[in-house]
């Protein structure tokens, strides 16, 4: 590790994995509530567990992105971080704000939480993924701006590489599109229209820039292929991402009251969205095949290749499954959407953060890679988690297909709950896969504490 200030990434990664564990625990609670409706009721009703599950996911990914940026930027720009102290301060503010929000969700009825946090002053609560109270939302803006200030100043005074530039644009884009969460008109159609500018233009727009730059960085380090080639690929991939993803927002504008031409624009452009993910898979494998060095960190290489494949499967293939308007007419708002959601989030964003953590942690602890034993355990965790997510997705897809058949397509459609009772078997199987995922995660955490002789320092 050439720059001391890179060490500030360590707390971010540790917090990220901690919140990740919390997210999975609440995921298991919800999975059980799908089959045992009154599990933990009324202490933790389903909607509270869901808020915690989704908010923890987004917050721990943000921690991961920030940690990755704090690790990469000094090395990319070949200069110390502008202000490590500011990074530490922001870490604690963000962690405390996040923890308070989660505690607020759990201990206070949501309506009460809204009253306590001046929601009437500027109502922004009660919308999916954006349930945070106003003070938390404002806190996120402050933390994001301070973080961006820190990173941008470092880049300004250091070497400007394409990877740093793409990462910076991704992070600035993330902050800019978060501002749309403050727009909550009383007209539901307008509310939803611009809600998607935060959600979709995040996960199918600027987050893919962050994904691309993180993957490119790790690939340069792990394969030793020269920067020029990797950065060329990165630009073409992120170009295709935004070219298809921006108008791809249209696949959310089929049934919310917006004009019908969106069904054409949305279908055409979102049908092209898997292309950048396919290119990312080819990119990862080509670089690893043409590597010019044998990097001791095999686990990080596996994570990088896995990110390419699983993001293509989850976001690309499972996305295309229900993105065309005539199909979406029947699958909109069913378990098919949940299946895509799980594999896409895991394949694209969870895995890329675990890739950078798996690469950076040993370096920050003073060695090129962990011991053979630790890496084998980490690879076990890779396969346990990845296979578990594949099964969760398959079971939810099966549940979704049956639900669509019973509730939407058949001439004598079943009521919602009646159809849910028919798919309970798949919810049981999904819950079991969730437990296996948790075992994989615990194995992943354990792999950091396994001893054995380590590879020499980089």
């Amino acid at each position: 590790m050439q720059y001391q200030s890179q060490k500030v990434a360590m707390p971010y990664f540790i917090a990220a994995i901690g919140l990740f564990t919390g997210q999975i625990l609440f995921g298991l609670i919800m999975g059980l509530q799908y089959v045992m409706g009154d599990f933990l009721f009324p202490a933790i009703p389903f909607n509270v567990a869901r808020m915690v599950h989704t908010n923890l996911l987004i917050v721990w990914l943000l921690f991961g992105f920030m940690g990755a940026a704090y690790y990469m930027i000094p090395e990319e720009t070949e200069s110390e971080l502008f202000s490590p102290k500011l990074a530490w301060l922001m870490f604690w503010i963000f962690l405390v704000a996040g923890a308070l929000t989660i505690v607020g969700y759990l201990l206070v009825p949501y309506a009460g939480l809204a009253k306590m946090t001046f929601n009437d002053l500027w109502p922004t609560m009660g919308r999916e993924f954006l349930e945070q109270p106003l003070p938390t939302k404002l806190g996120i803006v402050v933390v994001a701006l301070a973080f961006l200030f820190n990173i941008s100043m470092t880049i300004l005074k250091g070497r400007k590489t394409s990877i740093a530039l793409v990462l910076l644009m991704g992070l600035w884009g993330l902050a800019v599109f978060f501002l749309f969460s403050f727009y909550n008109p009383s007209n539901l159609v307008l509310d939803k229209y611009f809600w998607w500018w935060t959600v979709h233009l995040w996960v199918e727009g600027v987050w893919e820039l962050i994904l691309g730059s993180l993957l490119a960085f790790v690939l340069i380090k792990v394969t030793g292929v020269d920067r020029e080639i990797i950065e060329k690929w990165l630009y073409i991939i992120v170009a295709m991402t935004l070219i298809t993803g921006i108008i791809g927002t249209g696949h959310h504008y089929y049934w919310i009251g917006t004009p019908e031409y969106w069904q054409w624009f949305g279908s055409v452009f979102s049908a092209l969205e898997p292309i950048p993910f396919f290119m990312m898979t080819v990119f990862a494998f080509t670089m690893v095949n043409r590597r010019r060095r044998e990097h001791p960190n095999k686990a990080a290489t596996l994570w990088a290749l896995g990110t390419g494949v699983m993001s293509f499967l989850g976001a690309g293939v499972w996305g295309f499954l229900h993105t065309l308007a005539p199909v979406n007419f029947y699958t909109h708002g069913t378990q098919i959407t949940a299946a895509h959601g799980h594999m896409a989030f895991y394949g694209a964003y969870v895995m890329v953060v675990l890739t950078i953590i798996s690469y950076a942690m040993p370096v920050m602890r003073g060695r090129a890679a962990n011991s053979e034993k630790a890496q084998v355990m980490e690879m076990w965790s890779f396969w346990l988690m990845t296979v578990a997510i594949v099964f969760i997705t398959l079971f939810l897809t099966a549940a979704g297909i049956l639900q669509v058949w019973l509730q939407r397509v058949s001439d004598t459609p079943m009521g919602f709950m009646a159809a849910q009772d028919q798919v309970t078997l798949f919810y049981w199987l999904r819950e079991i896969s969730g437990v296996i995922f948790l075992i994989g995660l615990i194995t992943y955490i354990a792999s950091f504490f396994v001893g054995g002789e380590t590879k020499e320092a980089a």
Partner: protein
Amino acid sequence: MSQAFTKSMARNIFFGGSAFFFLLLVALTFDTMQVLPKRDHRENITPAVERGKMVWEKNDCIGCHTLLGEGAYFAPELGNVYKRRGGEFVKAWIKSQPTKVPGRRQMPQFNLTDQELDDMVAFLKWTGEINTSKWPPNIEG
């Protein structure tokens, strides 16, 4: 990859392409904003509908239900519940929760006042009248 493919050209395509398509999104958004009033009947947004949306959001209904297909998939779609069940049923249902039937999915008791219940029904009625291109496929939602 061959040398014929330069990084600076790739960067230009990245900047040009994303700016181009963001402009296209803004143009389409502008057109959508012109056409929307005829499709969402915003003239029917009474103060009750606005208050109803606030009640919907304050109690995080989206945490279990879907509205026009977006939200959580734990409980029924409510975009067309006014047409499916009618306002009185909705109010009676909310007041009578939770059912406490063992093993069944439970809806919390939100202790809504009668005013809030009427506002919620007004909001769900208005939502049901949005022209959603004939979605959902049937009344079950």
